[in-house]
């Protein structure tokens, strides 16, 4: 008989929500021992998660149960959608590990089981990109329904408007002889909707909330980047959430600032060589700088790279003769800690502009991509003189939403068409 496996299935904490998944013959039994009882299959319910031995309260979580074979792996599955703190996640994983017969999943093991049960097919099969996408789409939908009901509604509203515009355009095409005037300015309506999509695309995304905001500290060698990182990490306002780790190119310090996950990145990991300052400072770090959500620049005012969220720091403010920096810069002393709170406040302000507001609806990368495609198609429709091309732009936009949600086919279009119009010849 197969083992029952468990793992954290969402991104690394801290995050808004962390999802822990159990799969295997013992999943329901183990789930019951932690959650007290399991809801009906596919119905989310709130449960108190408790340590099965001590009875200690671990978290209050959304719990889902799936029965074999109707689950993502084809086996019995339980999902805990916990609060995304590291302590909580650790506690739940430890509790699960204490149950006999359960073990932590190997990397990719859920996917492998899903494949073995014929639930999904992954990378092996060539050309399955679409299906794989669809598979994650269904998972995404489940998450969406739970956590992002607002977005669902917004998407449905957009789809309804697209459908209405499409029906209007199709009526004009397939019912040439109908004596109703062609809908006024379908192209103009497409433009309006595209502008609305663009507006949404400019809003903060959900990824920073889940994956953390990338704050990059950069500047010429020996300006005190590492000292600054250490000073920040040592500050009581910033909680270091994991041990710093050195990657090939740079050092990353995950920390939490005012409850927001931040990935502080130090380009000091780059090999600094005096004669190559220009080359390295500009070319090599450029990639990191580019990827930065917020750039903290230690160096001369003129030398700072262009970045939309730039903080200029005047470092080593404690050293004699370094002055007070230049206008708009934050003077910081990594030695005395002076200026660190002000810098953190500045970082916090900029980070806030990247995060969805409290209760605001945020798009993830996938959704943004699809909506971007829809916007592009509608912009094409808005420029088109021929109603056939307007209809084509609308069809493309609907197809982008189809891929987003897996819904709306031609029958919906026809329903919409015929419920609204009276048709002649």
């Amino acid at each position, binding site marked *: 008989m197969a083992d029952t496996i468990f793992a954290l299935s969402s991104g690394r904490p801290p995050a808004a929500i962390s999802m822990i998944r159990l799969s295997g013959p013992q999943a329901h039994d183990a789930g019951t021992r932690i959650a007290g009882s399991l809801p009906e299959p596919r119905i989310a319910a709130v449960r108190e998660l408790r340590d099965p031995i001590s009875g200690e309260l671990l978290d209050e979580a959304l719990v889902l149960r799936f029965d074999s*074979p109707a689950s993502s792996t084809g086996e019995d599955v339980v999902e805990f959608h916990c609060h995304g703190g590291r302590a909580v996640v650790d506690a739940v994983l430890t509790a699960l590990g204490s149950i006999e017969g359960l073990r932590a999943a190997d990397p990719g093991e859920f996917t492998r089981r899903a494949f073995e049960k014929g639930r999904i097919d992954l990378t092996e099969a060539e050309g399955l990109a679409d*299906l794989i996408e669809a598979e994650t789409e269904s998972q995404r939908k489940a998450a969406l329904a739970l956590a992002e009901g607002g977005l669902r509604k917004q998407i449905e509203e957009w789809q309804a408007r697209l459908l209405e515009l499409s029906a209007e355009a199709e009526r004009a095409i397939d019912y040439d002889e109908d004596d109703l005037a062609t809908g006024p300015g379908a192209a103009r309506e497409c433009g309006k909707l595209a502008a609305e999509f663009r507006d949404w695309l400019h809003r903060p995304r959900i990824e920073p909330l889940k994956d953390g905001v990338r704050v990059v500290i950069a500047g010429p060698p020996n300006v005190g980047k590492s000292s600054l990182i250490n000073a920040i990490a040592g500050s009581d306002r910033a909680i270091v959430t994991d041990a710093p780790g050195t990657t090939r190119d740079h050092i990353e310090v995950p920390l939490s600032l005012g409850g927001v996950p931040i990935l502080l990145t130090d380009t000091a990991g780059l090999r600094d060589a005096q004669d190559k300052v220009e080359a390295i400072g500009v070319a090599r770090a450029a990639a990191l700088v580019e990827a930065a959500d917020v750039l903290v620049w230690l160096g001369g005012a003129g030398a700072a790279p262009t970045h939309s969220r730039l903080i200029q720091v005047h470092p080593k403010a404690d050293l004699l003769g370094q002055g007070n920096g230049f206008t708009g810069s934050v003077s910081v002393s990594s030695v005395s800690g002076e200026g660190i709170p002000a810098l953190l406040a500045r970082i916090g302000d900029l980070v806030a502009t990247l995060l969805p507001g409290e209760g605001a609806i945020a798009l993830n990368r996938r959704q943004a991509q699809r909506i971007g495609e829809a916007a592009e198609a509608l912009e094409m429709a808005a420029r088109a003189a021929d109603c*056939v091309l307007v209809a084509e732009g609308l069809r*493309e936009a609907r197809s982008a939403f189809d891929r987003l949600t897996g819904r709306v086919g031609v029958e919906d279009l026809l329903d919409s068409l015929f419920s609204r119009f009276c048709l002649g010849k």
Partner: protein
Amino acid sequence: MFDVLVIGAGHSGCEAAAAAARRGARVGLLTFRAEDAGQMSCNPSIGGVGKGHLVRELDVFDGLMARAADRSAIHRRMLNRSKGPAVWGPRVQADRQVYRAAIGELLRSSGVDIVVAEALRVIVRGGCVAGVETSEGVLPCRALVIATGTFLDARMFVGEEVVEGGRRGERAALALAGQIREIGLGQGWLKTGTPPRLDGRTIDWARLEEQPSDPEAWSMSALVDDERLPQLSCAIARTNARTHEIIRANFARSPLFAGAIEGRGPRYCPSIEDKVKRFAAREAHQIFLEPEGLKDRLVYPNGISTSLPTDVQHEFVRSIHGLECANIVRPGYAVEYEFVDPRALNATFEVRELRGLFLAGQINGTTGYEEAAAQGLVAGLNAAARALELDEVRFDRRTSYAGVMVDDLTLQGVSEPYRMMTARAEFRLSLRADNATTRLGEAALRADCVSEPRRRQIGRHFELRSSHAWAETEEGQADALYSPYVERQQREWQVVQRDSHVWIPRTLDFGSIPGLSNEMIERLSSARPETLDQASRVAGVTPAALSALYVAASRRAAA
């Protein structure tokens, strides 16, 4: 011994018989009355938006409809002329008698034997069709096309009156209907309607808006016939508040609202009582007055199909401006008819569970001559393939409206009479009425079903395409206009197309696939998609089910 027998000499049956004969089959065409072959029982017009596309496609395979329409056209109109060329819809008014004569002549020259008899029973031997028992004796055959239209089991409604029969004054094929139900193919009822026919001499044409025939001399067929009939004008009339009042006051006497008719009617061609009820706010509905022929006094008022009692029809017609003195020659009526779930067919229109039996036309839940004729072509070409062991001829929704229809019918089924519309074709920009030869010419040559003149015409067309002069042609200009969009679509399609290579074995038991819900098993079993790409279009099939299906299908292929 016939290779192919066809039951029913309507638009579908005639095309099926002629197409099978063109592929070299010995074909018998069974009908109640020989002179009814190619009868237009409803609207005397051929073509339109989407429908015109089908006629042009049929023509590439040397079908009859386009040539008969050209010979009998008394009014031509290119619909959507003000819009992009992708949706231009060639449509002609045909002289009903000339059209029938033209079909009769084309049919005779195709070598089809017309057999006047009633088909009583399909003879099945060893799971295959072996012949037909008729009122005149047994006719053995290798393949059979049933194209009985509304004649299978049909009831006609004129107000409170109910008459059995598929067309006014004609009988229904009840014996055959019983057997089709026994085979397990009967599915449900649909309804369609027709307007009252008016006496043209009693219409005050001078007071109505005239709609002249197109001045341009375009034709339906690519093989242009020089003979042209004189062209007539149509006219446009409008219903008014008084008309609607009369109709509303008699709702209770309409079989539609009184509950006598259960079948679903087409939403796109509603009866006038439907329109008045559903669009109560509208003050007027258009009526196109279409002459039925040069020597025919009958006029077809397009837009007021009805099943109201005769006296109500008289009253409301006469409330219309210009029709105050109009006489009704034949009242309108609704027909409720039995149809077969087309999901029981594969993409050649052969019944999946009965080798050699093909179904085509209205029996598959469609409406319209053009839809019926195009299905006749598909069934006829493939019935000949079955009988003579030739290659199947399949139509793809990316390259033809016929393919769109085959795909929609056999995968989605129908819940109301299916009519072709350009909105159904996602590749509309490439599926134009002007480029049917480009799209299907090679397929027609491969099917070896065209005459020598057609073969030459297709050859000339491809020669022209590869010459410099191409850019100047109407089709070449349309190609250029749409090419950026078509390229976008092709990229979009390529992603989907990767899946289309995965064939689902015919013997695959959907119930045995791990992880499929009962609902998915039911949907897939009804539609029996042949490829993964088709499966993705089966209504309601989820991405997860497709993944499971993919795994099962590719494992079977590997095993």
